[in-house]
């Protein structure tokens, strides 16, 4: 695993952008670009990172960066890749360009999943990074297909009868792996060395690769900005967000399973889950805990780890 002292000093992602204090996605971008191996182009979906880093006439990007729309980075990145290849065929340009498509969970799990699927099926040599802060944070904290069950958002509020978001978080890594691509990973900014290694592996793989990284949003999670990394770690340590790789279809756990931290420890640091700790939603909390445990065991099973 890459050590802090070995990380390149270059900062393709410059400071001075307008993302919040403690913004997980911003940290995820800075870390990802530490894994760059050469000339790199970033295709960014509409979202917090996009709107806050390129307010004209300023930009936080020292490398080529393209934004067009919310739901189409898979296609835009594919177009860029083919253009570089075609121009090289004609002798009009030279040299490999690494293309990173960067989208939030809304732009990936929901509105952009078709373009992502098309990109994976066609086999574009693109690294797709989904920074997951578990809701549409840019528009003001609305639920997405990545919002975990029970979380309160502005469109899945903790009401008197409905305690937050219904339904499970989509299994993005599984969906991507089902396309038969050779590299998919989940990661957390709480484990930076592991995350940066995964991005680098994704870059080195020929053909499409996906890295799904958990990146807490203090504003949307209603958490202390100083707790961003702590929460990113706890999400993994509670078993809620296991980190693993799927290499040529084979699951490999990135963190040896140990004793899990109780889920409540993670939930109580976040306002979005505060209702779940009230006595009236005790059953709901129990049901969520069972679901988290089942899902964790499923991943352990897929990774060939003993399930206890």
């Amino acid at each position, binding site marked *: 695993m890459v050590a802090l002292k070995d990380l390149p000093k270059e900062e393709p992602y410059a400071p001075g952008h307008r993302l919040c204090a403690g913004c997980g996605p911003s940290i995820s971008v800075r870390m990802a670009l530490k894994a760059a191996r050469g000339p790199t182009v970033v*295709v960014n979906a509409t979202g917090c990172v996009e709107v806050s880093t*390129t307010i*004209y006439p300023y930009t936080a*990007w020292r490398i080529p960066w393209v934004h*067009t729309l919310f739901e*189409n980075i898979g296609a835009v990145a594919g*177009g860029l890749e083919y*253009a570089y290849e075609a121009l090289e065929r004609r002798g*009009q340009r030279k040299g490999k360009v690494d293309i990173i498509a960067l989208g939030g969970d809304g732009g990936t799990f929901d509105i952009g999943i*078709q373009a992502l699927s098309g990109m994976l099926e066609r086999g574009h040599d693109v690294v797709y990074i989904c920074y997951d802060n578990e809701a549409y944070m840019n528009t003001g904290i609305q639920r997405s297909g990545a919002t975990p069950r029970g979380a309160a958002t502005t469109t899945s509020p903790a009401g008197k009868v409905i305690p937050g978001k219904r339904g499970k978080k989509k299994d993005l890594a599984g969906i991507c792996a089902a396309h038969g691509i050779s590299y998919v990973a989940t990661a957390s900014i709480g484990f930076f060395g592991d995350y940066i290694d995964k991005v680098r592996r994704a870059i080195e793989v020929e053909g499409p690769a996906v890295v799904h990284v958990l990146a807490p949003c203090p504003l949307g999670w209603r958490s202390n900005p100083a707790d961003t990394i702590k929460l990113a770690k706890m999400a993994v340590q509670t078993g809620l967000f296991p980190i693993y790789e799927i290499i040529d279809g084979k699951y490999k756990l990135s963190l040896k399973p140990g004793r899990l931290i109780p889920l409540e420890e993670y939930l109580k640091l976040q306002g979005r889950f505060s209702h779940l700790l009230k006595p009236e939603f005790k059953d709901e909390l129990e049901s969520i805990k069972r679901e988290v445990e089942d899902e964790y065991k499923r991943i352990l099973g897929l990774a060939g780890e003993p399930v206890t």
Partner: protein
Amino acid sequence: MSRRKRSYKTQGVVSYLGEAPKHIGKIKASSQIPGAYTGDEAAAYAAKQCKVDVVAAYPITPQTIIVERFSDYVADGEVDTKYLYAESEHSAMSACVGASLAGARVFTATASQGLALMHEVLYLASGLRCPIVMAVVNRALSAPINIHADHSDMMGSRDCGWIQIYAENAQETYDLIIQAFKIAEEETVQLPVTVNLDGFTVSHATESMKVLSDEDVDKFLPPRKPIFKVDPETPITVGAMALPEYYYEVKRQQEEAIQKSKSVVKTVGDEYGKFTGRRYGFMETFGLEDADAAIMCLGSTCGTVRSVAKDLRAKGKKVGLIKLWMYRPFPTEEFLSAVEDLKALAVMDRAISFGAPYGALCSDVSSALQNTGMDIRILNMIYGLGGRDTPPTTVRDVFDEVLKTAKTGKVKERIRFLDVRD
């Protein structure tokens, strides 16, 4: 009726009717090869000869022949093009934008629902100044579902900032696609272009036409020279957020670019005329030198109108045709100069602008005439929706009515729906 003779004079506009300027077009095509092509085949062949770097497309009737032919070229190794088989039109146009930003020459084609699905991305292509060329095989929009020709698709996206050109037949489709790349990629333009051809009537009808040799197309159309590109050699940010302090200026510049593209359209049309003997520009007119009454329309219907006008003129009727090649930017000055001696004009719209005073083309015509002092009676005819046939007899009826209006000055109906059951 009172009618002011030649009240409107164009200023500083080169007449669309005159000879091509002598300084343009020093080269001539070495040969022209006769052949039989459908409109779709002509489009695919033109794109092939334009040596496009990237095609990204999604199949839809009646555009399918274009993507099938191009797939053949790729499969047989006849082109160096990278073909991105998109999973939707939204992604097709998105990939076109990405490829164009990287500096590639890009072609795509769609129709109807496909264009509607692209709608959002069309604005990116023009706003980011991507010189993409797209064949739009005009087809009706659902509901009810219908696969046949009308102009509802393109008219629904007419404000998307693309240069919009309409072809009458396969020959024009071929010629206009070659010109479209030259117009789009011109340094001062840098805008995407649609070349429209009517579904089935043009797309699937085989016509005899002439094509250029590959070498001649190379001579006419050199490789694209992008003025900026997304490339690690020149790190730039493309698609930044422009808040109220800047957005308006960007859009205003875009409008200036499309208005100024007129001079490029004219130059390229003249050049192509010198090169091939087939001259293009903003519009083609027939019989306007002495016509009292005329019909104006787009696309394949112009052929029927021309033929009927010929018959009527042989019988001494003073009728004419205005066929627009270029719908956007609307050639206002040239249009006014063309119609200044007319007494009545029937504008035929192959799409409804629901709830509007007129169809889209007629709205443009009546806006162009506003404040000019010209007193031309305007009749709007909606026709041919969902592929409803518009035979010569219908066109003759329209000429009868517009001639009557020219004589009496009276407009019987603001909008008439042709060949429709009550």
